[in-house]
């Protein structure tokens, strides 16, 4: 019997195997493409003059003066800085290292300033209004994303977020009008969202139907149902049934007067304050309570949860209903804050963007909220730029939120892991 030795001779056996860097080239490619795109836009577009960034609003403690910069110059400086960031990303890729998140963040901020400076040439850009509007537009996305995070964390993929938002919007208008109270309308919205979630739950949890299919079908069903009810019931009786009281902006004393921060965060509708509470409570409950521990266990390894006496089905139902109620409450934004009446298909697919925020946010409530805010920013940017008259075609700008969604989810998420049992029905035995 021969015992052979490898050519390298015996190396000592180690307990911790090394890690080889497996680097994706997505980040450097995306950074380079975006840099070139902005450079091309600046070079080919005929922009001139100065751009003012307005940071002040009325009622601030201190008045911050406008910042005025030459439009094209600013854009070129930004392009150079972006190129440096992209080069650094390429250098790291060649050295088998990942592009860190901070580099992407720095790149994005510089790119945004450069783009805004260029696109708003000759005009004044209301920075505070842009950001405050972004937060307002992100409200349904954040509520939807919270609902999505909870659903997936317990193992049920909630494609029906859009349906829950739409059902919430419809119920908020109807209930709010009948009761004459916006807050009762919000409750109605939550109940409607929970009802959609109940249907999702019955099919996905009790009957093991494919969750993606049920979710999509529910979305289509809710579109049809609300459109029908709208034309048959709401439209003919608009004064009684489709004119809910509005949830107008409420300024929080003191906090609302802080320059920049105040008008963005604390001069919002009451629904935004409800959102702050919802994000905090969901995060705390998910990570710090018995309920949250069980939810996460059921979403990761339902059988393990079952073997320690946790009722998987009940936990899933309960969590999915709560998730639906949260998403539904977000739908109230459309009919109680945005406009004061219900309209057909008024969510415009926001539920799908919320779903993207769930993935971009790596199934974490805080990160999903930040992702939703990013998408809200993209939506509002489109609106603001068309108002001040930018050279970018409005059709292109309308694509912006969705383009950002695709880039964010496809390119820059990095390593992320869904809850292990997400989308998998639990069958006993």
């Amino acid at each position, binding site marked *: 019997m021969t015992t052979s030795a*490898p*050519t390298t001779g015996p190396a000592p*056996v180690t307990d911790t*195997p090394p890690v080889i860097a497996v680097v994706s080239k997505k980040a450097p490619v995306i950074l380079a493409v975006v840099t070139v795109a902005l450079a091309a836009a600046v070079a080919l577009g005929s922009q001139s003059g100065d751009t003012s960034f307005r940071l002040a609003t009325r009622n601030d403690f201190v008045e911050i003066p406008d910042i005025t910069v030459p439009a094209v110059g600013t854009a070129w400086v930004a392009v150079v800085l972006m190129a440096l960031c992209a080069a650094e990303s390429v250098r790291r890729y060649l050295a088998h290292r990942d592009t860190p998140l901070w580099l992407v963040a720095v790149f994005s901020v510089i790119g945004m300033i450069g783009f805004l400076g260029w696109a708003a040439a000759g005009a004044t850009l209301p920075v505070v209004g842009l950001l405050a509007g972004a937060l307002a537009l992100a409200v349904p996305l954040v509520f939807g994303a919270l609902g999505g995070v909870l659903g997936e964390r317990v193992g049920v993929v909630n494609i029906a977020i859009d349906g829950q938002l739409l059902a919430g919007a419809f119920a908020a208008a109807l209930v709010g009008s009948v009761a004459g109270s916006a807050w009762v309308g919000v409750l109605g919205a939550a109940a409607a969202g929970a009802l959609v979630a109940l249907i999702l739950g019955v099919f996905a949890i009790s009957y093991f139907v494919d969750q993606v299919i049920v979710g999509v079908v529910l979305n289509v069903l809710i579109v049809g149902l609300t459109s029908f009810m709208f034309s048959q019931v709401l439209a003919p009786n608009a004064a009684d049934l489709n004119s809910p009281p509005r949830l107008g902006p409420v300024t929080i004393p003191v906090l609302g007067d802080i320059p920049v921060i105040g008008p963005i965060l604390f001069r919002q509708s009451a629904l935004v304050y409800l959102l702050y509470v919802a994000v905090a409570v969901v995060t705390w409950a998910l990570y*710090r309570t018995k309920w949250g521990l*069980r939810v*996460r266990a059921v979403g990761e390894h339902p059988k393990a949860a079952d073997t*320690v006496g946790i*009722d998987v089905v009940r936990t899933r139902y309960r969590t999915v209903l709560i998730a639906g109620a949260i998403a539904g409450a977000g739908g109230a934004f459309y009919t109680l804050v945005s406009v004061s009446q219900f309209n057909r298909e008024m969510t415009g697919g926001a539920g799908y963007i919320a779903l993207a925020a769930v993935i971009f946010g790596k199934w974490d409530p805080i990160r999903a909220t930040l992702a939703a805010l990013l998408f809200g920013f993209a939506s509002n940017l489109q609106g603001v730029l068309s108002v001040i008259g930018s050279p970018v075609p409005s059709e292109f700008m309308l694509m912006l939120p969705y383009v950002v969604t695709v880039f964010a989810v496809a390119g820059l998420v990095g390593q992320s892991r869904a809850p292990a049992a997400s989308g998998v029905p639990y069958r006993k035995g």
Partner: protein
Amino acid sequence: MQLELRDVTKRFGSLVANDRISLTVAGGEIHCLLGENGAGKSTLMNVLYGLYRADEGEIVLDGEPLQLDGPGDAIAAGIGMVHQHFMLVPVFTVAENVMLGNEETGVAGSLDIDAARARVREISDRFGFHVDPDAVVGDLPVGVQQRVEIIKVLSREAKVLVFDEPTAVLTPQETDELMEIMRQLRASGTAVVFITHKLREVREVADRITVIRRGRVVGEADPTATNTELAALMVGRPVELTVQKDAPTLGEEALVVRDLTVADSTGMVHVNGISFEVRAGEVLAVAGVQGNGQTELTEALLGLQEHVKGSIRLDGRELVGRKVRQVLDAGVGFVPEDRQVDGLVGTFSIAENLMLDRSFGAPFVRAGSVQVGRLEEFAREKLQEYDVRAPGIHTPAGNLSGGNQQKVVVARELSRDLRLLVAAQPTRGVDVGSIEFIHQQIIATRDSGVPVLVVSTELDEVVALADRIMVLYRGQVVGIVPADTPREVLGLMMTGERPAGAVA
């Protein structure tokens, strides 16, 4: 304390998994439940744990009949279970896993993680476990994960502790430590039920042995019974425990692997620069505890892994960087470690499964259409030759027993013109009769001059088949040693220790 199962019967459709099984276990004793894979041991324990409901019979604890509607009821009654596939949430910490379902809470349902930590430390110290309550379970070695399972059960004050095939994933040393833990539990008055099919372990710790075959109790045995007696009782006929084989007729070095490194998509290295060679007509058996790079090694040989560095040469031809089909065409036969996932398509018929990796052309496909007649003839022939017990060639492979499924996989791979056979866990979950048969086939392949690489986590199988043994630990070769190396030395090597005299 006395737990009694009286005439427990459990059926799945027409299959009777447990047929009037009666069993008693008392505090302070270790009762072994011995039986082959598929004999119904796990079903019985799932009934006891409330995961399945018995169709007939009752479970009685200290004279009181138990109504078990779920694991929660079993836990409340003081029954704990250490599952074969650990019931731990990999992304949770040890403390979180231990507290799950049994949480101590503060204000508004907030978790008292400190109480859970203290509890883990207390039990860990009592048994000398050395488990860090804040470690993430998925990062722990399997042996430690099993201790977490034991802590979890003990923290619920179990009076009856069921171990379901607990040694399948352990090194021999860890197995010894587990036996010691069982003795400690027995000394503290706990009733221990130990389910296994490994005779050596039974004889070491059991106070009483109950043997189950095809869902029925077929006898009780003393711990003093010999291996041969126990095996005969378990299988129902005399069994050959060793593999008949002659000294190998060695040929040229056929498979030469040099500095092979395999990483996963996160960059974690699973096979770390290993080199070895297998000569024609030789069986090189790869020993090691599961999860030490065996899966990645065999998959890299077939071209299934993405991040592979180094060289794999078969008869002088480089295989690294080739597509799976090219590797198959080069004459590599592959028995994957999980036949139900990678070896068979359960809903396909036996015949279709037999042509699964030959769908590109002759003899089974001509001008894009399957030659049904030729395939059926071939399938009937193989069914006969490999003694596959099935109603017919059109039976879905998923309906077969584990042993017969594996015979289908082996038949498919061995009926090609092979230049190398890679067999990963060839007899996992396979009955003793089929094990004998598959082992004979592997040796016959060797004797026909084909180099064979066998990967097994069962040391008995490694020793039985090997001409040489390569021990893997954390993706590295600890050593390549002769087949007659003492088990104790192999066991040590499986923990990463390189014994004096063994050359890597």
